[in-house]
């Protein structure tokens, strides 16, 4: 079998970088993207500088992957932004920014990636939600709503792409010690942890474990599913 080709969005830092490095260790060809240049590089890794909400740039990135590798097997839509604010104090621009990156960005990369995947009748798409959705977290209304949109979109997409051998699933991490939660106050984090059956912060390994399961060739009967870390449910 040819080397598997994987695209990880938001691979400059945090979970995205961790996943990209894991895939490289597993011998995959790894493509990544982010708005700013990463401070890391590795053999077998190609980085694209772009905003996932930029339609033309996303299209160009996928065309480049097709040209160089002739295929894309796995897409990990990790790129995302968060915002902590009371709904009544949230400017429209924040809503537009979150929906553009978290929802429209996920949509665009899925659309263009699926076009490549369908040719080989194989594909694995993993999108990202958050525990803020099942917990209906106060202060995260817009972030949670944008990720809820990702979940429903993924589940409909799972139906539309099933006949192409492409599965679409969602992983919903708990808070992990990354830049995304750096602005969240400690008492807020403790409140989240208290509501989790398993009361600890998430680790990159926890997310990677769920993704490993979703992308295995044997998981071809698993689609439209949401796995929430930490024991939560009810997305």
């Amino acid at each position, binding site marked *: 079998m040819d080397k598997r080709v994987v695209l990880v969005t938001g691979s400059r830092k945090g979970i995205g970088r961790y996943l990209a490095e894991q895939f490289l260790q597993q011998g995959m060809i790894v493509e990544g993207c982010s708005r700013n240049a990463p401070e890391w590089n590795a053999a077998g890794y190609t980085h694209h500088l772009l905003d996932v909400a930029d*339609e*033309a740039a996303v*299209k*160009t990135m996928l*065309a480049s992957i*097709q040209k160089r590798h002739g295929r894309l097997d796995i897409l990990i839509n990790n790129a995302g932004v968060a915002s902590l604010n009371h709904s009544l104090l949230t400017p429209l621009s924040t809503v537009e920014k979150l929906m553009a990156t978290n929802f429209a960005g996920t949509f665009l990369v899925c*659309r263009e990636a699926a*076009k490549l995947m*369908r040719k080989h009748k194989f594909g694995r798409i993993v999108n990202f939600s958050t525990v803020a959705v099942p917990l209906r977290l106060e202060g995260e209304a817009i972030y949670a709503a944008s990720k809820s949109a990702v979940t429903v979109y993924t589940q409909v997409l799972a139906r539309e792409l099933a*006949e192409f051998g492409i599965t679409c699933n969602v992983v919903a991490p708990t808070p992990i010690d990354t830049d995304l939660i750096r602005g969240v106050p400690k008492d807020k984090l403790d409140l989240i942890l208290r509501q989790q059956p398993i009361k600890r912060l998430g680790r990159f390994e926890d997310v990677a474990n769920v993704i490993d399961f979703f992308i295995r060739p044997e998981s071809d009967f698993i689609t439209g599913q949401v796995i929430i870390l930490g024991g939560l449910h009810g997305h």
Partner: protein
Amino acid sequence: MSELSLQSKPHRAAVAEIVIAGVREALAMATEPPTTEVTEDTFLIGQSAVLDSMGLVTAILEIEQRLADEHDVTVVLADERAMSQKNSPFRSVRSLTDYVLQQIQA
């Protein structure tokens, strides 16, 4: 192929050829390929359509891919009127050809 022809935008005849090839490809992928000849008058949506909705999706994606492979042209053939019988740019090979040309020139 010269570098110049790679960079120049395709003419209508070339686009029509690509659209017809994309529709043929989608027909060939259907379980029971009909013997219909594909011309500019072939309908893609509605009662006389030669493709079902998934066949139409396949045809559109084939056309996008051929434009990229053969002419180095990157377009997204997506339109909110896609499934409308009256206004869809995808309703026939002719309208789709016009639409693709429009998108290339945009």
